[in-house]
């Protein structure tokens, strides 16, 4: 078996077309230089998608809030990966831009739910491919400025333990007191939705603020799931 051999050091000033041994640092780690930007390869292959809601017009519906009675609750911004999509959805970017109202007293979380039977509510938004003229998404998006009943949510939307944001964009306090915010979280694959699951921005009980209106945007990569030959697909 051939080994991948490295040489420690800073390298040289080599001409294009020359063959060189890759370099390592003093701990034996291979030294690399990114060819380009982080997401360009996935976007150029047409696998990155976005959906957005320019402005909510009411406070958060209870599908976004920790509660014991969640079936058929009101939903405003939700992404769902259908059971037979054959893709995982890897979240890349999430934007939450406060516009007005009173913010919650704590952070916003990523909320996830399992639902093997697709909601009966029809998709309410157009998902855009980040590569203009690229293929359509396999995902289903639901947006509603004022909120709409998430019909067909028959499993009661069992929420997994939400992962809290550690980023600074989501400052507590009245939104009007925040003239300008950085509001982008680079999720960078930190949340993945297998088929039959979905994602919502999520607030713990009593922490969703009052009339807290916002711009929302989510961007994700659709990664094909390799299937063994002759095997069916289960979750």
């Amino acid at each position: 078996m051939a080994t991948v051999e490295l040489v420690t050091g800073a390298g040289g000033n080599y001409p294009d077309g020359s063959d060189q041994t890759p370099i390592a640092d003093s701990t034996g780690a291979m030294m690399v230089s990114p060819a380009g930007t982080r997401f360009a390869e996935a976007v150029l292959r047409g696998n990155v998608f976005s959906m957005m809601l320019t402005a909510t017009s009411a406070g958060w519906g209870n599908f976004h809030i920790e509660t014991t009675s969640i079936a058929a609750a009101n939903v405003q911004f939700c992404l769902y990966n259908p059971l037979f999509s054959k893709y995982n959805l890897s979240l890349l970017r999430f934007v939450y831009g406060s516009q007005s109202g009173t913010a919650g007293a704590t952070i916003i979380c990523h909320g996830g739910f399992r639902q093997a039977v697709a909601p009966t509510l029809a998709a309410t938004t157009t998902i855009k491919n980040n590569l203009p003229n690229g293929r359509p998404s396999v995902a289903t998006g639901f947006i509603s400025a004022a909120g709409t009943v998430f019909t067909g949510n028959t499993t009661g939307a069992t929420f997994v333990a939400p992962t809290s944001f550690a980023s600074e964009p989501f400052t507590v306090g009245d939104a009007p007191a925040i003239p300008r915010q950085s509001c982008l979280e680079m999720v960078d694959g930190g949340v993945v939705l297998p088929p039959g699951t979905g994602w919502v921005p999520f607030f713990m009980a009593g922490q969703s603020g009052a009339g807290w209106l916002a711009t929302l945007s989510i961007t994700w990569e659709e990664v094909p799931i390799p299937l063994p030959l002759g095997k069916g697909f289960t979750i």
Partner: protein
Amino acid sequence: MPSSEIRVGPPGQALADGETLVARADRTGALVIQQAHARSTETTSRGNVFSMILTATTGGIAAGQLVAAAAAASTQFALFNPATSKYNLVMMRFGYAANSGTPAAGALIHGQFFTVPTLAASGTIRNNRPNGRQSVAVGYTSAAGAALTGGSAPQTLMAAGFSYTATAQGATTTSPTLEQVEGAIVLPPGTGWAPLHLGAGTTVLSSYSVTWEEIPI
């Protein structure tokens, strides 16, 4: 076909320059790496990274910089990739600052165009490596705004990385803001990009900046 082999774990002690070794793996078998240079050094040093700025607008937010703008509306800042360029434009960074006035509430939006205007270029595009080659892109900058002749109506793609409430921008709130787009937006030939606001606000004066990589197709 021979397969490659890498070795789990770091060496027992720090290695001196010039030593040869087998590439290092972590305990899952993944190759362990370290970045040799700054993230954009390779592509910038090859002369493939470009920037365009508008230091300050002199009028409020132009109609063409608004969500749901009409075709050929007055535009202050936009970037296009000509249909015959033979390059994709990969967006790396976007900067925006509201220097004064009262913005409309909400996040800025990345807008897309699916055709290229006939208007002659008005923006100065600079190579991020001084004395590098010319860009293939067409940029439009206009402090007061100019009709985007031959342009189509922009469509919304996704929100940008900063947001405003409807609050007057004071001395303590005028720091520029930077979004690392990191290739999440790509412009193939025949398409374009512009930042879009949810509303014009009141007498909002702005600064814009965009940086991109040009990748041969």
